[in-house]
């Protein structure tokens, strides 16, 4: 079979593999690893020759395929590598991932076919009601936040320039602390979050943690009027969050 490769936009290695499987009209559950590996590597070559940025994930999969291929060549039962379970088809893990991914690919396609708002159906684009009935809740601009931050920094005691603080706190830790505090009360003044803080570093860390929480929509920052006091509250729904907190169920967290 010639390896003429038709290039498409692949979402990732799994997507590329599914494409090859479909093109060859074979079953996911019985992949001819040797042939598919060859075509997979050929596609990567084309991608590289076109100077497409071949993401690391594609290369990891290439290695996986070659590894599976080599294991398939070993006689059954003679498999002694430590990561093996007895008699397990070396393709099993890959097949499971492919099937899992295929399910969500199908689900995504179905979602895309629904009556999507602002594509297939539209709603009245009137004045947002908030502006009429809740004038006391405006979003705070980044500029105003930075001004507030500068005020906090200016208020810090000036004579601690040489002070060496040993207690380091990470943005991540601060995020947790902030959330806990905000959940405990309705609204908190921006300034009060910094009232006990003496070091510049901690002010900055707190500020970054706050921005990070806004980014994931865990908290809301608003003010009554332009230039007015800036208030912070936990976003609706975060209150119930502890109930949803999932404990580690033996599965690994992959980090980043």
């Amino acid at each position, binding site marked *: 079979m010639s390896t003429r490769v038709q290039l498409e936009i692949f979402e990732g290695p*799994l997507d590329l593999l599914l494409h090859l499987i479909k093109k060859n009209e074979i079953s996911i559950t019985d992949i001819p690893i040797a042939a598919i590996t060859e075509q997979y590597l050929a596609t990567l070559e084309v991608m590289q020759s076109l100077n497409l940025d071949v993401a690391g994930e594609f290369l990891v999969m290439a290695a996986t395929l070659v590894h599976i291929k080599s294991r398939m060549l070993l006689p059954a039962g003679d498999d002694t590598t430590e990561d093996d379970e007895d008699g397990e088809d070396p393709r099993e893990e890959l*097949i499971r991932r492919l099937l899992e991914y295929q399910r*969500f690919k199908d689900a995504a396609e179905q979602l895309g076919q629904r009556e*999507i708002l602002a594509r297939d159906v539209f709603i009245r684009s009137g004045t*947002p009601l908030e502006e009429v009935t809740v004038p006391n809740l405006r979003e705070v601009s980044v500029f105003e936040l930075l001004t507030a931050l500068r005020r906090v920094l200016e208020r810090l005691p000036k004579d601690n320039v040489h002070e060496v603080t040993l207690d380091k706190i990470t943005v991540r830790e601060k995020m947790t602390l902030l959330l806990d505090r905000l959940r405990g009360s309705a609204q908190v003044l921006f300034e009060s979050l910094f009232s006990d803080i003496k070091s510049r570093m901690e002010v900055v860390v707190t500020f970054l943690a706050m921005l990070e929480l806004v980014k994931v929509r865990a908290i809301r920052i608003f003010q009554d009027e332009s230039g007015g006091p800036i208030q912070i509250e936990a*976003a609706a729904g975060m209150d119930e969050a502890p109930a949803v907190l999932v404990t580690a169920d033996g599965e690994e*967290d992959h980090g980043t």
Partner: protein
Amino acid sequence: MKRPPCWSRRMARKIMEREDVRSIVESLLFVADGPLTLQRIQEVIEGTSKEEIRSVVMELQNELESNRRGVRLVEVAGGFQMRTAKGNADWVKKFLGGRPARMSRATLETLAIIAYRQPITKAEIEAIRGVDVDGVISTLLERELIRAVARKDVPGRPFLYGTTQQFLELFNLKDLTHLPTLKEMEEITLPEIPGEEIPVESTEEC
């Protein structure tokens, strides 16, 4: 329990005709900013029962549907909302101008995974898709289609994401139970390995 200030007493006539109720309901649905719940309508139109409101809403819905009206009443995100008829999309788009809303495959796939598996961490999504989803996640957060709902109790305490009300509104879903059903995992058994099923971490669907 209903607060009866005198002005609203005056408003609630002794006998409210069904026609009147229907007319008011239509007005409320017209001005509402988002999907309107039956409960909310009932709170506004005092002296009506939830059943009455429901039947009036259904009547309106049927009327708009059967007369091929340009506006339809759709049950979405836990309430009811007036939306344009799908067949008129091209005309409405032409009128509104602007770019048509496009959803990339990456966006749809990531949304699908979050919708069916929520609450879920970024790493878990990446394990399914086989690629990095940093950029997609920030876009989805920005568009308020997903939000952080909690943190997972594992090292690093990563955020767990879930879908929002806006997600339901975007995809015209009554609630999460109305998501199209995922293909069953049974299809995933390996025929060539007798008596052995592939371990699946979770088959539950939301």
